[in-house]
């Protein structure tokens, strides 16, 4: 496939005086798994709604598979957007949802859907509104996976799902993705759980893109230093500090940047412990408001 799956330029959505999404620009390349991460209310869902033409942008440019998505059946038929709060008609059963999906999504794989149905142990005949929260989420996951849409978006798809079912989702996703590559966007709070799946991470904070980075790169861009406060302070003096957690005379600091061999030796000499920061910790520290600390100069 040529061209990008999604191109977003200066995309803005405001509600009166509130700007939910503020001049966001990014591109999604085809056949990659993206993580769209950020806190509640950061604007992730709004962005995804605009990409799928369910909400209208206030300004900015938006191209999905090279075209405007609004009322564009060529584009829309290639998108499957599964969201946490999806509503279904009151009288719909699980079977109704799956049957309709099979006609709506051109790449629908019935055999795969049936397999997933068994995996998630869903009762076919039961009404959607009588399903438990977790089962309700499973239906969305089955639709999202079996639709094999070239752009598949999961927005917090697993509310109420237990750890076993979530693991099942990740396994099926990665298995099917390796056989049928497509662009997948995962938006979630459970960053650690999905971090092994993600190839690229976009972090949204306060309606803006905070990080847009290859996941591998990102994992290597931060580490934590722990030791006595004075030793840590001297070590981080010239570095970009993203967090500080004092504990008595001790201090743990999160630092962005790569650790050179010389720095590693220096840390050893100072008796400091260096540890990797997980993607989740990194994002938590970058997006929590109180850690707006630069260069270790806070007194």
């Amino acid at each position, binding site marked *: 496939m040529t061209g990008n799956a999604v191109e977003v330029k200066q995309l803005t959505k405001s509600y009166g005086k509130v700007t939910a999404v503020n001049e966001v620009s990014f591109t999604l390349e085809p056949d990659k798994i993206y993580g769209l991460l950020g806190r509640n209310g950061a604007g992730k869902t709004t962005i995804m709604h605009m990409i799928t033409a*369910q909400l209208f942008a206030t300004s900015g440019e938006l191209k999905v598979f090279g075209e405007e998505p609004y009322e564009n059946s060529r584009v829309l038929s290639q998108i499957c957007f599964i969201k946490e709060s*999806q509503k279904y008609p009151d009288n719909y059963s699980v079977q109704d949802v799956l049957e*309709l999906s099979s006609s709506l999504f051109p790449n629908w794989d019935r055999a795969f859907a049936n397999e997933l149905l068994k995996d998630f142990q869903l009762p076919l005949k039961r009404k959607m509104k009588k399903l438990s929260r977790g089962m309700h989420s499973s239906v969305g996951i089955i639709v999202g996976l079996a639709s094999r849409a070239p752009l598949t978006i999961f927005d917090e798809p697993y509310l109420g799902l237990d750890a076993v079912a979530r693991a099942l989702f990740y396994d099926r996703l990665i298995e099917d993705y390796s056989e049928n590559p497509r662009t997948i966007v995962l938006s979630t709070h459970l960053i650690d759980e999905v971090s092994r799946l993600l190839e690229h991470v976009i972090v949204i904070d306060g309606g803006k893109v905070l990080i847009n980075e290859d996941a591998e790169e990102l994992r290597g861009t931060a580490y934590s230093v722990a030791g006595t406060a004075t030793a840590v302070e001297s070590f981080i003096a010239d570095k970009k500090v993203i967090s500080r957690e004092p504990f008595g005379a001790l201090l743990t600091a999160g630092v962005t940047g790569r650790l050179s061999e010389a720095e590693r030796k220096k840390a050893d000499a100072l008796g400091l412990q260096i540890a990797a920061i997980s993607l989740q910790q990194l994002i938590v520290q970058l997006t929590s408001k109180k850690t707006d600390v630069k260069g270790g100069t806070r007194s």
Partner: protein
Amino acid sequence: MNRIGNVLKLHQRDKSAWLVIPGMILGSSFLVNLIVGFLSGVEIYTGGLMSIFIYMLVLGIIVLPQTFSFAISFSIRRTDYFVGTALNAVIIGFFTAIGLLLLSAIEKATNYWGTGLHFFHLPYLTDGNLVQQFSVYFLALVMLFFWGFAIGSVFRKFRGIGMLVLTLASLLSTTLLTVLIISYDWLDNIINWFADLTAFDLSLWLLPFILCYAIVSFVLIRRSTV
């Protein structure tokens, strides 16, 4: 393309809303009337048939909250949603009208169910020929659906505020109209005008209403968000 076919499928999978519930409403209304007619032994002219028409209005109102956000989330275009939903209502209206004609014929043939119950075969409504009778039922059903659909789409687009404005505007214009009618003594003319019309003539007057409601809902649905 079968995009509109998909929307028809979306609605037709919901058999409760489109077939079972209206059938039950009309059926129970008929049954109650039949029992009363049977027990009382007097000839009854009833408006129980109205229930199916009222239901079409209700269906028009609830179809959007029930299915719009689902359809849009499942990659259906707004235009296809509108055309498919409208077409589905027209199809349902068509078959309901045929069904009502049949029941009306049965009612007449069975000498009003043997009890003198006039439920489906009513004077005035059944005055014209078959095509005219069909037109009365069909257009009334379709008009009521689109009326509800237009109300639903105002709510979809403008939410509570929209409904409030719409309600106030309707009340105000009705009041104004009433005042005009009374102060200019139009009432007699209006009654005479209506009295001269057959049910079929009246049903044709529903066409512009259907068109207006359809345009309003189409325009609003195109601009509605999830």
